[in-house]
């Protein structure tokens, strides 16, 4: 039956690769697909907002007759219970996983799969986790406790699921790519010994770049949350969190209020991330001198894209900054009769020497008030495929030109512009006006 297990698993994993999922991602070693690392991005609008929650998933040999086993790895090394069903030990209490008694309709069946498991876990990261505790589901009038619980989760979400993983990813940057560049061509090994290794090392190997990229996307939202926290904690600064009735000393969420410290750490992470990106061009130039494969490939891709652009009517220019294939400059002129008409948008694309393991970072350098561009100019876009730069360029242009994108909180990088763009008629007009004003400035 091992055969049945792996065939079904291969289908599911292939499906993951095809789907454009912003809410979760998986990583695994091709040689051992039964050990899967998964990361769920905390749903916006919940206390877990945009945190990086990592899980180790093990697939039993008789899958899909039996459910996978799932452990939460984002636990502050076994010290923090992130929710009533997310124990400090890493246990995930969920009827679909058989770790919690459930109604007949909620139990595991072979019609369930990785995606439904991840969606179920995602639903545990809810806007009101307090009522997920058994026996507390009808306590929605416990407003004081509910607010106390949500506010300490918000603090720990930023501390343990955003800043901590980023600091670790910056501390050991090599872990994100070194295994792939080994001469013997072996793919990176993910998670095989997950229980024996330090949990954070696994985190880095699989999702370091994923988290870095998203951190830059969502930075304004993290900053807003911290500013709000600082205002709220004036009276309770450095005092301990309140304990919840269902928490115990070994399985709870203990800590102290200190948003001021989180602010300093967040700023330092931002600084280091930018430093890292600004090292790529120098590292890249060294690779150009060596005639390294990646440098040659990028040069070739640039030449090809420029040739193709000539046949388009669009006014666009794509050049390499100082001839360096690791820094591209895209100059885009808005089409006539489009919202971007008359604007000249200057975009700088940094490409990592470890591309595509580390994804490009895209910054808009000219002023642009846009729902997909953050205050510091970071642009969020989705390339059809991550490996070729042409797909990145297409993704950038499509994002700029898409006047009516559907609302997606996970693509919100400029909270103020998004509120206007999807607001009342008056607000929508204000958004268009601000966009126009920024284009005129450019």
């Amino acid at each position: 039956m091992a055969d049945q297990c792996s065939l079904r698993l291969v289908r599911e994993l292939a499906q993951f690769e095809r789907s454009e999922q912003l809410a979760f991602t998986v990583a695994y070693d091709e040689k051992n697909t039964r050990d899967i690392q998964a990361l769920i991005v905390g749903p916006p609008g919940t206390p877990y907002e945009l945190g990086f929650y990592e899980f180790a998933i093990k697939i039993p040999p008789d899958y899909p007759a039996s459910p996978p086993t799932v452990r939460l790895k984002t636990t502050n090394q076994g010290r923090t219970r992130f929710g009533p069903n997310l124990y400090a030990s890493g246990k995930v209490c969920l009827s679909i996983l058989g770790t919690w008694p459930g109604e007949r309709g909620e139990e595991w069946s072979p019609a369930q799969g990785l995606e439904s498991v991840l969606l179920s876990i995602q639903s545990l990261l809810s806007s009101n986790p307090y009522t997920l505790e058994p026996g507390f589901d009808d306590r929605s009038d416990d407003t004081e406790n509910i607010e106390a619980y949500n506010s300490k989760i918000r603090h720990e979400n930023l501390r343990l699921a955003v800043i901590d993983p980023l600091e670790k990813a910056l501390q050991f940057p090599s872990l994100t790519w070194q295994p792939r560049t080994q001469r013997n061509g072996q793919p990176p090994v993910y998670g095989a010994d997950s229980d024996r290794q330090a949990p954070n090392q696994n985190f880095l190997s699989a999702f370091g770049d994923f988290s870095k990229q998203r951190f830059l996307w969502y930075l304004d939202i993290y900053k807003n949350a911290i500013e709000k926290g600082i205002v709220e904690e004036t009276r309770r600064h450095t005092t301990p969190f309140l304990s919840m009735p269902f928490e115990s000393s070994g399985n709870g969420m203990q800590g102290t209020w200190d948003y001021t410290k989180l602010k300093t750490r967040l700023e330092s992470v931002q600084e280091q991330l930018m430093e890292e990106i600004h090292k790529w061009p120098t590292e890249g130039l060294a690779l150009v001198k060596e005639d390294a494969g990646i440098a040659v490939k990028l040069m070739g891709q640039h030449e090809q894209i420029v040739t193709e652009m000539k046949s388009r009517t669009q006014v666009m220019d794509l050049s390499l900054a100082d001839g360096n294939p690791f820094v591209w400059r895209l100059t885009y002129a808005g089409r006539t009769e489009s919202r971007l008409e008359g604007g000249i948008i200057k975009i700088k694309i940094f490409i990592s020497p470890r591309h595509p393991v580390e994804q490009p970072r895209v910054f808009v350098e000219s002023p642009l008030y846009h729902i997909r561009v953050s205050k510091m100019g970071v642009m969020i876009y989705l390339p059809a495929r991550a490996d070729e730069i042409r797909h990145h360029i297409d993704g950038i242009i499509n994002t700029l030109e898409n006047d009516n994108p559907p609302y997606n909180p996970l693509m919100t990088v400029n909270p103020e512009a998004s509120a206007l763009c999807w607001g009342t008629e008056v607000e929508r007009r204000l958004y268009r006006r601000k966009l126009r004003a920024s284009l005129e400035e450019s």
Partner: protein
Amino acid sequence: MKVTLKEWNAIATWHWDIPEDEVCGICRVQFDGTCPTCKFPGDECALLVGTCGHSFHMHCLLTWINQESSKGLCPMCRQKFEWKQGNE
């Protein structure tokens, strides 16, 4: 002009009487393909059509139904799984 047929070869295709793009809810392979344990599609790797309206490869379903935790329920809708007999 008269044509004389010397020889002819008949070729036929078949598929299960089920929409072509439907997949087995357990192995997620199309019904016209086989379950993961078989090599050739056809009578050897039959389908079971449940009275609840859900179909599966017979081998896939039996692996599940023979397991105690299944409680004899359909994996999709969790009603008691009973299959239609014969050529209904």
